[in-house]
């Protein structure tokens, strides 16, 4: 079962980044093989929605992180093997062999595959790997593949020894024609291993923690010291949400860090559902059915819809999903900013109050309409947090640390005043 999400959420969280190399995915991508990279991308596109699977994956990576193990292969080994095996793919597609690899290619490819298999055998045979219960399933699968009788001569082959022409021909037939399916499965396993080991290495380096997934149904989220993994000098924040406190109403000035906190929190929830370590001190969460964020909603002037109408459509989408009795994690940044104050106020209160009555889901809404917050205090399931602004003379300073309550800090006017716009106009020549 996979976590449902959408394009807007993936864009909001910057999972894949706009340009190459600046998304959350790129931050986690330390893989050695192209196949591993593709697997990682798949995992990022499809977070899980199953407690057992999440915890199992998370324990595998945690185990490898604890062992501090390195990926036991050279990336170039895979390049050679993959290039050689491509010819098998072409053949299996048409049923007739069309592309024949050159002699040199066969030689390099066969040697690479043999080395891969031997090293894999060594790897799964080590005591540490054998001792990892979470990894047992993968380990057994690999052992089973390798201990197949047909591969027996492969494992007997002396490392780095030069193969005779006849042996090479025999292996070529074995790898590329007869047992291609098994070789492919083995590579698939190794790609996953690449992902596990590289993420484990990242976790140790960045001191990421492994979240604990809880049963689905009773919404729960406890974050300690959560921060955005892309920040240089991040400030961690704590937040606990549960069934009795399922809506958080977040206020704060423009630069106080609301969007960043919402991103950090949503990213943590998203990554945790992949079973990966996250940027925090600790995290516990109940597994959700879906995650939806609305942080940077674009104006769609092309189709003639107003920003407000876009926001309404977005809320409607959430409402429809919720009405299917799903357990969702929903984030709205600056809800209803595209309209006048009164409408924004009424709409925020109406929607937030309606959210607060839905059981089974968690909501975080940030807003500038402080009055809406005051009205929402009557709803028992709504909690209030704010990110403070401290005025140091005329210069605003930000702590980026959540506090309990509502704030009406604003500094738009401070900036206008600091720039002296009103003074210029006050003292100008008026005729």
């Amino acid at each position, binding site marked *: 079962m996979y976590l449902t999400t959408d394009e807007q959420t993936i864009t909001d969280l910057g999972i894949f980044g706009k340009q190459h190399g600046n998304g959350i995915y790129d931050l986690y991508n330390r893989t050695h093989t192209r196949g591993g990279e593709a697997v990682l991308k798949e995992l990022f596109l499809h977070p899980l929605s199953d407690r057992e699977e999440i915890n199992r994956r998370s324990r595998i990576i945690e185990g490898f992180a604890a062992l501090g193990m390195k990926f036991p292969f050279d990336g170039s080994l895979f390049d050679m093997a993959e290039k050689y095996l491509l010819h098998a793919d072409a053949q299996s597609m048409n049923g007739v062999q069309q592309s024949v690899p050159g002699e040199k290619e066969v030689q390099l490819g066969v040697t690479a595959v043999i080395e891969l298999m031997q090293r894999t055998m060594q790897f799964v045979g080590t005591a540490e790997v054998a001792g990892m219960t979470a990894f047992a399933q993968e380990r057994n699968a690999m052992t089973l593949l390798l201990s197949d009788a047909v591969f027996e001569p492969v494992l007997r082959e002396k490392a780095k020894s030069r193969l005779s022409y006849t042996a090479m021909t025999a292996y070529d037939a074995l790898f590329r024609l007869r047992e291609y399916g098994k070789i492919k499965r083995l590579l698939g396993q190794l790609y996953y291993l690449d992902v596990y080991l590289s993420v484990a290495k990242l976790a140790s380096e960045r001191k990421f923690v492994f979240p604990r997934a809880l049963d689905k149904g009773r919404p729960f989220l406890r974050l300690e010291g959560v921060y955005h993994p892309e920040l240089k000098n991040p400030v961690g924040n704590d937040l606990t949400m549960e069934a009795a406190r399922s809506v958080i109403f977040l206020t704060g000035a423009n630069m106080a860090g609301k969007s960043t906190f919402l991103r950090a929190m949503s990213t943590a929830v998203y990554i945790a559902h992949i079973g990966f370590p996250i940027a925090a001190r600790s995290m516990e969460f109940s597994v959700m059915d879906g995650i939806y964020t609305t942080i940077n909603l674009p104006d769609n002037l092309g189709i003639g819809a107003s920003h407000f109408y876009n926001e309404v459509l977005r809320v409607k989408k959430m*409402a429809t999903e919720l009405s299917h009795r799903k357990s969702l994690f929903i984030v709205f940044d600056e809800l209803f900013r595209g309209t006048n104050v009164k409408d924004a106020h009424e709409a925020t209160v109406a929607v937030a109050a309606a959210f607060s009555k839905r059981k089974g889901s968690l909501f975080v809404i940030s807003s500038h309409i402080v009055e809406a917050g005051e009205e929402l205090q009557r709803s028992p399931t709504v909690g209030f947090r704010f990110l403070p602004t401290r005025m140091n003379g005329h210069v605003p300073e930000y702590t980026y640390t959540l506090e309990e309550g509502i704030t009406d800090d604003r500094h738009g006017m401070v900036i206008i005043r600091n720039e002296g716009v009103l003074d210029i106009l006050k003292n100008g020549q008026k005729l």
Partner: protein
Amino acid sequence: MSISIDKQTMDELNLLGKFRQGSVYGLFNKVRTRGGEQLLNKLFMQPLDNAAAINERSSILRSFQHAALDFPFDVQQVGLMRDYLDTETGKTALATLGNIMVKSWLSVLTRDERYKKIVQGLQATIVTLNRCHAFVSEKAWAAGPYAARVGAIRAILSDGRLEKLRRTDIYRALPVKTLAYYDFLLKRGMRKEMKEVVDLIAEVDVYIAVSGVARAKGFNYAHVLPPEANILAAEGLYHPCIDHAVGNSLTLRRGSNVLFLTGANMAGKSTLMKSVGIGLYLAHMGFPVAAASMELSLREGLYSSINVADNINLGYSHFYAEVVRVKQAAEAAASGKRLLLMFDELFKGTNVKDAYDGTLAVTEAFAEYGNCLFIVSTHIIEVGEALKGNGNIRFVYMPTIMEGVHPRYTYKLREGITEDRQGMMIIQNEGILELLKED
């Protein structure tokens, strides 16, 4: 001093740019000659700075529009003549003669084209001067705003030497000596006079093109008053680059110098502002404006902030950029200049409350500058309520008519502040709250 306008405003109003789609320059760029295009560009870059000059140009344009002429010159011949007059000649008549003789021999001996070019250039000049003479002799120019200019050219063309040149039959052989004589005469002896003639042709080109556009599109000429009048009044004003645009009437003057504009996103607020800005700028050029009628006093500057609001994702930096823009405008206003300031969706880049406070403070502060005219639009209609006590501010809005769930826009200004509070209505229409009800 002529009206000052910066790059941002130029871009927002889409005034210049030959290759930009829908630019105002592109709309008027129906000129035929290169000289005409250069002149049109110059007129766009240098609007006029006094009412007399503006009104003179617009009356000339009006007379051209009345005459409904076709461009009386041959475009190719004009081009050849310009090129010919631009090329070098000898320092003395004798040097010119020698030079041309050498070229004529060269053309016989080798494939040298230079002699041929000189002959073609002189022939084109003769043809064009004859056309020009016919044009300036027309009865239409005997009186009226263009009479003086035409008279000066007629005097030039009546010079005995030029008359003799005009009578030269270009289909007869031209001795090298005669060729050299005229080459020297046109490029050196009567250099200034020839420049006048070339300039006139460019002018005529522009006037015919612009007045032709005005006739085709039904534009009218603004009446420009001296700066002290401090007024901007337009009826049936619309955006010149939009076909079938809806015209609107508005008046801004001392004591009523602020227009507070509200309305839904697509209702046409920005387009109205652009129409005002473009109309004002064209009027300062003495060009026809897209309005039934327009009366205005001269302005010293035009500041706008219109398209920036379309990208709200820039966040803080966007807000800051807006503040800086307002500051520039404030400094210009505070220095006592007579400006037209237009801010669309002021402070849209920030939260509703800051936008409210900012818009309110800035609008009130600008309203005190009776010398400046100010148009501000916002979706925060509450600012309007707070400004109601201020006598300088007029409230208008662009209405939205809801037909079921689909909005329709009339693009026709109405007095007051919009009450199009579609917010909750849209939410209800979408049935969101019902969807969220616990079942």
